[in-house]
């Protein structure tokens, strides 16, 4: 029997794509013994070596399933597992049902981490990468948010909530803009540094303005409704974690769910999609919001939060925050070009946000 704690592992040239350390594979075998299943085959389908997580697809006498090693703290994983069970059993949402161990629990603990098995949903197909696909994703997301309301985690779970943390995360973004500036200054001879230093003030000002707007918004009143009133944000939603099944859209990989005003998922989907388009398209944004709204109606107050969250320099921040890791590699010609693209795209954002603001007022 193995008894060491599961920790992240190294990958290098000699390890293959889905390498998982031997001791973890032994744990997987131990874990499977707790299930009333005969396993015909097992294959690794995803690994998170830097975090210490993995997913296997297993073929069993009871059909295909996924076996997951959750990398988060066990008490944190309990929150997500409870959510998955609530959504599938109580709310009958299209999320993979959890397959229980012999003694009836949702999970088994091994190597200091939680493991669980869920149904492998097939067939699943990504939606098309066009406006129609985006609308399907948005509708499914709205549905997911609506059904997640009322979730109460099991007593042993820690409360994962982003609900009260909006000001803090806005603040963090403002703070990091100064980090970018300091690094650009310290590494001023790198190719991308002049470009970075030329625009960092502008994006810092945007972030501060968003923070001020959040402060003036209904945010503080909205959060008073409490965690379970608002439901869960997925935090990793997009073209791969929302897919079309036989009977409709399924939402998978719920490991990161947390309480929040979940509109943040929609914001990420919109700003990410516009970044892919390389310009802000009013029709796309309007229709994405509309599809979401049909599944989970957006109140004027929440709409305001969506507008504020869209006003953050999200794409600049998301792409540049890596700079702290290896500035001597990151600040190359490619990043200089990237910054240029982000700045150009950002210019097209503001007229769109202005229109969205005006049109919603007119409703």
């Amino acid at each position, binding site marked *: 029997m193995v008894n060491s704690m599961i920790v992240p592992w190294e990958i290098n040239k000699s390890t293959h794509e889905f390498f998982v350390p031997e001791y973890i594979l032994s744990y997987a075998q131990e874990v499977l013994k707790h299930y009333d299943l005969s396993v015909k085959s097992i294959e690794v389908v995803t690994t998170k070596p830097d975090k*210490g997580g993995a997913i296997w697809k297993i073929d069993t006498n009871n059909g295909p399933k996924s076996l997951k090693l959750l990398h988060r703290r066990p008490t944190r994983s309990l929150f997500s597992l409870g959510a998955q069970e609530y959504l599938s059993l109580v709310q009958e949402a299209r999320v993979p049902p959890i397959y229980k161990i012999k003694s009836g629990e949702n999970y088994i603990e091994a190597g200091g981490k939680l493991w669980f098995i869920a149904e492998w949903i097939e067939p699943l197909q990504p939606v098309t990468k066009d406006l129609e696909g985006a609308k399907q994703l948005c509708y499914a997301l709205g549905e997911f948010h609506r059904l997640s309301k009322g979730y109460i985690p099991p007593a042993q779970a820690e409360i994962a909530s982003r609900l009260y943390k909006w000001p803090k995360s806005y603040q963090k973004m403002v703070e990091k803009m100064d980090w970018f500036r*300091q690094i650009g200054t310290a590494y001023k001879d790198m190719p991308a540094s002049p470009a970075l230093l030329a625009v960092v*003030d502008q994006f810092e000002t945007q972030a501060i303005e968003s923070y001020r707007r959040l402060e003036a918004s209904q945010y*503080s009143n909205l*959060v008073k409704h409490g965690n379970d009133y608002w439901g869960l944000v997925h935090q990793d939603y997009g073209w791969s974690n929302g897919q079309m099944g036989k009977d409709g859209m399924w939402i998978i990989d719920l490991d990161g769910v947390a309480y929040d005003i979940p509109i943040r998922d929609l914001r990420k989907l919109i700003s990410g999609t516009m970044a892919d388009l390389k310009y802000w398209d009013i029709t796309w944004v309007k229709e994405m919001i509309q599809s979401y709204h049909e599944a989970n109606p957006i109140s004027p107050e929440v709409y305001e939060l969506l507008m504020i969250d869209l006003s953050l320099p999200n794409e600049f921040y998301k792409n540049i925050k890596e700079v*702290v890791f290896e500035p*001597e590699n990151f600040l190359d010609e490619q990043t200089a070009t990237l910054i240029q693209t982000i700045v150009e795209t950002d210019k097209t954002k503001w007229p769109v946000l202005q229109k969205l603001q005006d049109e919603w007022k007119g409703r």
Partner: protein
Amino acid sequence: MRILMICTEKLPVPPIRGGAIQTYLSGCLPYLKQEHEITVLGVTDPSLPNKETVDDVNYVRVDGKIFELYMEGVIEFLQSNEFDLIHIFNRPRLVIPVRQVAPNSKITLSMHNDMFTPAKISSEEGTAVIKEVALISTVSDYIGEQIQALYPQAKSKVRTIYSGVDCDRFLPGEHPKMEKIRQSIRRKHGLENKTIILFAGRLSSNKGVDRLLRAIPELAKKHKDLALVIVGSNWFSQNNVTDYVAYVRALAKKLPIPVVTTGFVAPQEIQNWFAAADIFVCTSIWQEPLARVHYEAMAAGLPIVTTARGGNPEVMIQGENGYIVQHPEDPSQFTEKLSLLLSDRTEMKKMGERGREFALSFYQWDRVGADILAFWKGAQETLISSEKIDYTDLLNNSSTERVTNYFQHMPIEAPSMINQEKVETVTVKKKKEKKKEKEKTETENTEKEKSEKK
């Protein structure tokens, strides 16, 4: 008295995994156990038994990590054990549940952080806590003031009991016990002829070490042979490098002086780094209760540059054992204060010696022990109200969400607020400044005497 000391749910006692509260508790236990029968209730740990008696102190350990779970264990324990006095560390939210099962015990609180804020406890429960405890000790005046700002009725119950340090373990580098260690550390890292500036603490943005790094280029222009040592456990961690650690590393790489980063240093060995250093800098930007490193630096005979945040300045006499930076967001203020120290080496050494004297006179564990014994005596003499209140409703209604103003601790600064060129005039200003500091010191001295009389 039969006394129960309830530690927090996070780290075990003895402090095998560190922790300021755990260190405080263990530091004064030898003095407390001489007068009372002590039981320490804490969290379980794989390397410690759930029940043991060591050096006449009973240890009981229940599951924790999560507060609610820990609270259950505490209550269960108290249902079958009785104590004259229950001393609760840093968890005001344990007070009312404990009162429900221990109606006749005196309850005292030892506060180490801002735990009475609306984010941590509802005002209804907070009011009940203040009513039920006999006395509250705080690790700094700052923590006491924060409690009184929210609960003015707590005024008569609050006492500051500063923490302590083992002055036989934390010793100046020239002490016979330390001389060799100092030399060998310096040799090992190629710092033999350097003036070592030491930072020890968590590498997180509220602890502000980035400001020190940004202060170095200017400082290095004026003072030769400087080196920086950063003792912070998360520096080398390969797998979980936070953005902040990465940022600090990136800045460090570009500095014109040697930067030694130690990575994790076992709590039992940390004194060696203090002995190897010449100046200690605390860069905290947040309102810190009062960081233990100040006591350790003083005991090690290091002059200190710290920040005017939270309780940190309370152990400082400006110009006597070091200097206080008023606006730690601004790196040039660190340049200025460090430059002031470095410009007069004799004075700098004297400040370290004064620090050592302070540690020996005011911050040893026997003093902490004596303070707590007197504090308990005071608590014993208070009257317990005969009126027993049933708090069941209060406990049932207490929700996990208590925050009222989510923006209150978020000062946002305008962009490009920091003027990097401010430092130019330091040397010219020096004499004037010194005079000013001296005047300030005198007033602070009298204040310090006052607070010591308390």
